């Protein structure tokens, strides 16, 4: 057990190191969501309600974490395929699920850079101050959101391992995630059936938890839902990974040719 935990910790750390030294990922992950955040701020600013700006300021800070997964998870595994590393990862005796989880968790963690950058940007350029009523619970909410997004990324990467073109689908999830998880737009605006889809996504609950903690309200229900959903996604992904790998071996999609 301890061996597994150590393996998860060390591989997470090395993957994080790998992602951090890549300036390319860095610039894109921080700068790109900033454009969208800026646009959102410019729109909300016309409204004249400062609370709306705070709403957007907090939500847009988390956008980067979602993007980190939606875009990076898919493309990173595709990149691994190109680099011949995907095969090596599969060839290791460690269960593929345990190989993937540290990778996607590291990716989601890099979203924290974007978080800080967006908060600073909002503060400096637009004067948005996000009050944090309960820092401890806020951090817990943030941590759970990052982990939940990592689990979603885990599910996504399982698909990418099997299908060579799945990475484009992953890219496609960036916008819907921003929209549906309530980062920039209150869910009350959506038709009911859309809200059901939102509630099925773990980051939605994490975002709510963070907003509640920032406002000094109780985030416990939201936190619990976030953790529960994240665990559900992880379990589905773990179950699928065995099936998917076998299929990938049958259809020879682990490599390029």
């Amino acid at each position, binding site marked *: 057990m301890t*061996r597994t935990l*150590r*393996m998860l910790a*060390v*591989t997470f750390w*090395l993957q994080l*190191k*790998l992602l951090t*030294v*890549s300036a390319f990922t860095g610039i894109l992950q921080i700068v790109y969501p900033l454009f969208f955040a800026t646009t959102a701020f410019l729109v909300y600013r016309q409204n004249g309600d400062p609370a709306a700006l705070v709403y957007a300021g907090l939500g847009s800070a988390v956008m980067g974490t979602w993007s980190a997964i939606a875009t990076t998870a898919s493309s990173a595994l595709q990149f691994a395929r*190109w*680099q*011949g*590393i995907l*095969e*090596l*990862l*599969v*060839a*290791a*005796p*460690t*269960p593929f699920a345990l*190989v993937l989880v540290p990778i996607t968790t590291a990716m989601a963690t890099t979203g924290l850079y974007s978080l800080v950058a967006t908060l600073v940007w909002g503060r400096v350029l637009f004067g948005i101050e996000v009050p944090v009523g309960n820092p401890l619970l806020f951090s817990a909410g943030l941590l759970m959101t990052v982990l939940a997004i990592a689990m979603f990324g885990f599910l996504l990467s399982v698909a990418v391992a099997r299908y060579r073109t799945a990475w484009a689908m992953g890219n496609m999830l960036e916008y819907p995630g921003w929209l549906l998880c309530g980062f920039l737009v209150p869910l009350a605006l959506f038709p009911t059936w859309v809200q059901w889809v939102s509630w099925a996504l773990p980051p939605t609950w994490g975002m709510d938890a963070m907003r509640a903690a920032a406002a000094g309200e109780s985030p416990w229900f939201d936190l619990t839902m976030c953790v529960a959903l994240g665990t559900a996604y992880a379990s589905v992904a773990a179950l699928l990974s065995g099936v998917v790998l*076998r299929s990938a*071996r*049958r259809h*020879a999609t*682990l*490599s390029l040719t």
Partner: protein
Amino acid sequence: MPVIEADDLGRSYVTTTGILRRRRTTVEAVRGVSFQVGEGELFGLLGPNGAGKTTTIKMLMTLLLPTAGLARVLGYDVVEEPREVRRRVGYVFGGDRGLYDRLSARDNLRYFGELYGVPPHEQRRRIDELLDLVGLRGREGERVEGYSRGMRQRLHIARGLVHDPAVLFLDEPTIGIDPVGARELRGLIGDLKAAGKTVLLTTHYMFEADELCDQIAVIRSGTIVARGTPSELKAAVSGGHVLEVEAYGVRPDVVTAVRGVPGVRSVSIEDQGRSQLLLVQVDHGVEVAPGVLALLAGTNVGRVITRQPTLEDAYVELVGQTESTESVG
């Protein structure tokens, strides 16, 4: 018990072409491949590009599921017990890929060490040993992206050895490496065998197979066309000798005529720019030089040599001989 066992192994692909009218074609990459590798043996799978070497090795590595036959490594079935196989084998392939460029060599080895469950207290020592073995000590802190191809290949081998596997699969490890680097790598491979590891090597370099391997299987178009020790292969194919004739502008009909000379097993031509080299494989004990030279009377002839066949001759004959008799499609 053989360490590696392939029994009538086969792998076919179905490809679809076209957008509107989809045509399905079945390609058999590997067909009926059977061989056995004993403990401590260095086994070579020799064949031209596209012969099915990589496909075979990937099946043995549990990365591909065979569509026919079965394979076992150290007694474990590659399909049913992949994890057991993976614990005990190392996989090394040639080329630039297979490493995290933006991590250092040490970090790469640490990463895979963790994935292969190398005990933490052993990791540091093992990594140091491996770096010494492949000659990368002193540069292990640098990022791999700055390495030369030869260095990458060596690191790749170190990575394949990080968990001290009993069996090693090497897929064209010297491809694209300069001659000096390749020679060092071959030395390294020889050392591994001396250390008692069982190695399966694929290559399209005959001299490499000749130098390193205890046993060779020649694979062509997915099937094994010959098997044996390097000397057996040389002997089996041509018990005779080779007549080398340097000619200037030899015509195809002349070549066909030479083929017809009694005692001639096969004729191949090597283009050497302004001249051609006619390689005539001759049966044992038959003298064909006068007959052949008579046919070449109209052509400018340079050097004429008679020599013993090399593994290259055997290989060219094995791999090339069926081409003229093979029907297309």
